């Protein structure tokens, strides 16, 4: 869709479908053409079921012809990170462990999209089991950043971000445990939202760290993200941690809520390690809000320096427990080397998991093991309380916080693969929100001198996504960063 359709927003495509200027089948074919034209270089997709996509599009056209379109997203293609189950589709999680797995049921978020009439469009690449910040931990392929194919797209939802940034699909879903939606959105120059923990059901989202994981949307605009969020938000009996809360009309709220807002700037997010070009762009964004009449206050989140440590204890501990299910017995790869039942576990896991997953399972097992539990896991949970309290204190003074999303622009492929700790520090501005359960959105706020996108992270109060998205939307509509696209 080099053509007129690539890079159009879901809202624009939705209007054209409603006006019968094109059919859902034509739109799906245009997206397929863009994938064919660009994915040899981008490698965003792990699989794509063309026949199924076109069948969904035909059903959408039939509904529309009968005057029964289900939502503004009816007929709009949505890509899914390969960690969200869709019945009868693959679900590899970027792992050899699940190479042949076919989902027997739909994730609740996938069902939400189906109920809205969206066309579920392909399975998007990711770091294995969502562990990583560059998508280089996929067992299958390395996704490229569409702005510079020698660089990584971020991770772990790198395929979901790159597919939107490359104009292959207008919107997509990812998952965010420590920054896996916001960081790739920032590095690929698009909008990505991690909702409040519990806003979206995790049923059918393959678990990494259950107390931190959350599904969320990517799009070119805040409006597209709001429209997509609408279809997947809400309580679900199948996930007892999903919250009973009223779901507002997120798209309508963008126009209704106009500020001015009180916005906090946490000083701990502007220290050492922040690249100068990122600092400059984020400071300009802060200045813009001030010029609009928003009150800007410096705030302090004093326990920020402990966040990465607490996160890598809690996340790996939960992962070591969650990933125990991949045992070679019921639905995974089974090693041919095994001779007895216990041996099956050891060898199937050795063959099925890649290095980063093994590393995190070992770390998580270690911090939970007898004698170390209190010193590591117990202490990390207490620090989590302190980190959360920092945010709640700040939100007594301000409506939202403004920070960089990522300390740097997209780095080169291979640059950090040899040093896991350095890779972990790529999440330094995003992981606190997962520990605190808060919503955060990354919106494009500039480009580095070499033309790489920079993202502004806006942090909201729990379950106040409508306000958060309105704050992001106000900035976006006054700037044109999101209308620039990579030359492919």
């Amino acid at each position, binding site marked *: 869709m080099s053509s007129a359709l690539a890079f159009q927003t879901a809202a624009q495509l939705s209007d054209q479908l409603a006006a019968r200027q094109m059919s859902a089948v034509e739109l799906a074919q245009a997206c397929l053409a863009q994938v064919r034209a660009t994915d040899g270089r981008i490698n965003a997709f792990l699989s794509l079921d063309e026949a199924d996509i076109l069948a969904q599009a035909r059903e959408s056209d039939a509904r529309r012809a009968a005057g029964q379109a289900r939502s503004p997203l009816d007929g709009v293609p949505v890509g899914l990170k390969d960690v969200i189950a869709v019945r009868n589709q693959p679900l590899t999680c970027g792992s050899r462990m699940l190479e042949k*797995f*076919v989902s*027997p*049921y739909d994730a609740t978020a996938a069902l939400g999209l189906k109920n809205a009439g969206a066309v579920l469009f392909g399975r998007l690449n990711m770091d294995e089991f969502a562990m990583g910040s560059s998508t280089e931990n996929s067992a299958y392929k390395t996704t490229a950043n569409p702005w510079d194919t020698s660089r990584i797209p971020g991770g772990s939802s790198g395929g979901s971000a790159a597919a939107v940034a490359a104009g292959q699909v207008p919107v997509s879903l990812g998952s965010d445990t420590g920054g896996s939606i916001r960081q790739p959105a920032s590095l690929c120059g698009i909008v990505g939202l991690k909702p409040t*923990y*519990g806003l979206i059901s995790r049923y059918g989202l393959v678990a990494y760290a259950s*107390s931190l994981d959350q599904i969320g949307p990517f799009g070119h605009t805040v409006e597209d993200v709001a429209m997509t969020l609408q279809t997947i938000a809400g309580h679900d*009996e199948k996930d*007892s*941690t999903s*919250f009973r809360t009223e779901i507002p009309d997120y798209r309508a709220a963008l126009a209704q809520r106009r500020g001015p807002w009180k916005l906090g700037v946490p000083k701990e997010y502007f220290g050492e390690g922040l690249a100068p070009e990122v600092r400059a762009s984020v400071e300009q964004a802060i200045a813009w809000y001030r010029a609009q009449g928003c009150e800007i206050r410096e705030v302090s989140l004093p*326990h920020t*320096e*402990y966040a*990465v*440590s*607490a996160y*890598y*204890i809690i996340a790996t501990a939960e992962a*070591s427990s969650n990933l125990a299910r991949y*045992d*070679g*017995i019921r*639905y*995974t790869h089974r090693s041919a080397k*095994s*001779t*007895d*039942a216990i041996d*099956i*576990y*050891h060898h199937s*896991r*050795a063959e099925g*998991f890649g*290095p980063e997953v*093994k*590393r995190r399972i*070992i770390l998580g*097992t*270690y911090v939970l*093991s007898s004698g*170390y539990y209190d*010193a*590591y896991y117990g*202490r990390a*949970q*207490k*620090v989590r*309380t*302190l980190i*959360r309290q920092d945010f709640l204190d700040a939100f007594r003074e301000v409506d939202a916080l403004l920070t960089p999303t990522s300390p740097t622009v997209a780095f080169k492929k291979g640059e950090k693969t040899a040093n*896991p*700790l350095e890779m*972990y520090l790529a999440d330094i501005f995003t992981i606190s929100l997962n*520990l*605190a*359960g*808060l919503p955060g959105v990354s919106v494009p706020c500039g480009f580095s001198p070499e033309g790489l996108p920079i993202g502004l992270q806006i942090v909201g109060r*729990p379950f106040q996504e409508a306000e958060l998205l309105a704050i992001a939307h106000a900035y976006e509509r006054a700037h044109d960063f999101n209308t620039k696209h990579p030359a492919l």
Partner: protein
Amino acid sequence: MPDTPNNVDIDYVASLARLALTPEEKATFSRQLGDVLAYIEKLKQADVSGVEPTAHAFDVHNVWAADVPAPGLSVEDALRNAPAQRDNMISVPKVVE
């Protein structure tokens, strides 16, 4: 913390995790985990006296569901991903002699 970094008993931890590691993996992971654990030592500096642990960001209480039978996965769906099966069951090597 009770341990100085770099002395993770990798064989013991790998056996707890039911994960066969090659000698190369053991060497690499020991070194890398030593680096990560050294970094995590920072947590020692946080004053957590009197602080309650957080398991979940929001209060999650036990959720009761009505005990009503409902259809689950069909046998076919439940077995479609099994690495080996026989007579509607997952087959595994002999567990008891």
